[in-house]
């Protein structure tokens, strides 16, 4: 059993943006029980999953977290058992001796430490749900338990920082608006230099057809991908805009704090309504995409416009013949990593493949792939440096499946995957470059 854990160092003042206070250690068990009781009343998934598991163990070998760490508590069933035993003790029906047979156990401070440790070693990848005969999606339990921990004031410093940045600047990196505008101007100049064309990157343009919402990391660090998108809109002749209020598709609230997730979602939808756009197009980010596609309806009711993914939008242009690709510009052997929240989480498996086939010459699938694909190991936002050892262990199964393809380029169209995979590949000595799909589209696009 590894002793590594991610420290929860968020300070009281960092927690304020989330409207939670730190609960003193000795009061945590009691507070945790109250919170768990509340959650059982509004999350059917949680209650069901605590009730119907038969301890068959079919999920164990399917979790990359267990495969990578060999820590028995990282078997999905054992992870959930950490909560289930408390549930059996305090909430399950039936006489107490019956519940004792089911492993009922009291809650103490150590239980909470174990929760913190192991629910931060789950990437919320949902692979276990594909293999569990009862369809138990451990990610749901992880989401609920991290939320519970957040209400106890147990949040990683990294996550608390991101929530704060998002609230103050509308992006996770905390870049203020003037700097964003500067950066955009610079990118426009770059585009001019590279293509000789006047490719604009409009901000807050009212009445634009499309509001494009990139990951802030694409806007500021992986700018090639972002510039590719500008080129595609230009070529397709679509009027588009960014919003100065929100330039972030990665919604970290999903991982540990539902109110933050909802607020983030609302922010973008309101920006879209105010600008009067016809659709919102989400950029490369896995879990962000899941919240846009699957949760927007619940949070914002019926919307006047659809929320589509960049790949769906591009596919539309491609099939209409509004843009063309020259695949000889991507001659390398290229493989594809399914971000968990595109594939299992967000119904986006065939679209990126269709685009890839149109813009690269040599495409090879990993084994396993699509809904069976392994997570990059950075999912659920455990991207912090403090978690490096865990991240590398969790990325191991993915690294092996990429190594086996012999690919030169690994296409991983998700902001988190793009941050995690280069480090993982390097650590496990897999010689491969990691790129977004936008980068590859940009290279192949015939302007």
């Amino acid at each position, binding site marked *: 059993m590894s002793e590594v854990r991610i420290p929860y160092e968020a300070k009281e003042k960092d927690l304020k943006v989330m409207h939670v206070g730190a609960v003193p250690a000795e009061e945590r068990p009691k507070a945790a029980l109250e919170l768990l009781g509340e959650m059982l*009343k*509004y*999350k059917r998934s949680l209650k*069901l999953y605590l009730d*119907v598991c038969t301890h*068959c163990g*079919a999920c164990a070998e399917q979790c990359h977290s267990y495969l990578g760490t060999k820590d028995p508590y990282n078997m999905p069933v054992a992870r959930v058992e950490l909560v289930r035993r408390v549930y059996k003790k305090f909430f399950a029906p039936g006489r107490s001796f019956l519940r004792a*047979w089911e492993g009922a156990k009291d809650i103490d401070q150590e239980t909470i430490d174990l929760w913190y440790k192991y629910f931060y070693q789950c990437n919320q990848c949902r692979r276990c749900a594909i293999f569990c005969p009862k369809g138990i999606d451990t990610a749901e339990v992880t989401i609920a338990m991290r939320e519970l921990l957040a209400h106890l004031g147990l949040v990683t410093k990294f996550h608390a920082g991101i929530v704060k940045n998002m609230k103050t600047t509308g992006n996770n990196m905390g870049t203020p608006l003037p700097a964003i505008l500067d950066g955009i101007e610079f990118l426009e100049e770059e585009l001019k230099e590279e293509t000789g064309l006047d490719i604009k990157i409009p901000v807050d343009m009212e009445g634009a057809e499309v509001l494009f919402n990139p990951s802030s990391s694409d806007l500021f660090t992986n700018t090639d991908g972002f510039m590719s998108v500008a080129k595609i809109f230009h070529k397709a002749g679509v009027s588009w805009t960014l919003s100065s209020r929100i330039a972030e598709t990665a919604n970290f609230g999903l991982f540990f704090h539902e109110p933050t997730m909802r607020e983030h979602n609302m922010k973008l939808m309101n920006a879209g309504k105010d600008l009067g756009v016809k659709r919102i197009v989400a950029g490369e980010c896995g879990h962000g995409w899941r919240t846009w596609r699957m949760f927007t309806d619940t949070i914002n009711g019926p919307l006047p416009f659809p929320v589509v993914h960049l790949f769906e939008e591009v596919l539309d242009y491609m099939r209409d013949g509004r843009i063309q690709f020259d695949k000889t510009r991507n001659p390398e052997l290229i493989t594809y990593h399914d971000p968990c929240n595109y594939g299992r989480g967000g119904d986006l498996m065939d679209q990126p493949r269709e685009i890839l086939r149109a813009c690269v010459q040599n495409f090879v699938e990993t084994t396993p792939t699509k*809904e069976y694909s392994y997570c990059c190991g950075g999912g659920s936002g455990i991207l912090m440096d403090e978690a490096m050892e865990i991240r590398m262990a969790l990325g191991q199964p993915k690294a092996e499946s990429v190594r086996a393809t012999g690919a030169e380029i690994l296409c991983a169209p998700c902001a988190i995957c793009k941050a995690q995979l280069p480090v993982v590949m390097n650590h496990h000595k897999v010689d491969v470059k990691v790129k977004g799909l936008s980068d590859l589209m940009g290279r192949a696009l015939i302007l």
Partner: protein
Amino acid sequence: MSVLFGWVLPYIVIILFLGGMIHRMLMWAHVPVPFKLTVFPSPKTTGGAVADLVKETVGFRSLWRGNKGLWFGAWLFHISLAMVIIGHAVGIYYSGHHFMMFGSTAEQSEHLSVVIGTYAGIALLLGLLILLIRRASSPQLRFISNFSDYLVLLLILGIAMSGMYMRWFADVPYSVVRSYLAGLLTLRPIAPPDNSAFMVHFTLVQLLLLYFPYSKLMHACGLFFSRWLITRPHERQVILK
């Protein structure tokens, strides 16, 4: 003694079993599902989702995907259990003459009923043993197993063995069991069959039913609820040409 075990207990057991089971299901149904939790690829229509659910419940598709050995043990156990339960209902109701519907003689029908019942019983025992040995021998499985995981297997093993004992060594005719159960059902109980193997078998079944609503056995009902969460069909917002 037989008044208590044969007359009074069965009524209490059946009420507790059905009541407890329905109560648990209502409790699940009362908790809301705020977000769509579909796991993809998902069916596009409700019909597709139902078909998916059927494939899963009859064929154990998820287990087949990941672990063929476990699939074999679990599937063998569940399918033979289903056959045994159906066989009990039909065999006892028709006193083993149900195959006459398909044109056999009474004797052939009884014989066929015994043969099928015996094979199903053996398959059930085999399935149980595979699951039990698997659980007890793997360190991973031992790590995640509670007392009740073994208890349930042993209880069903006891039921299956006492049943097979009756079949092979202590012949209890269908007709005797039939009149006894008919008496219970029509609220005019008569004395239970005077046979200790039968009483052991019958009592173990009642214990299992009593335990059912409070144990993991509820997965038999919960499965449909939990699978529905992730197979719920999802309509795409945007239909691409």
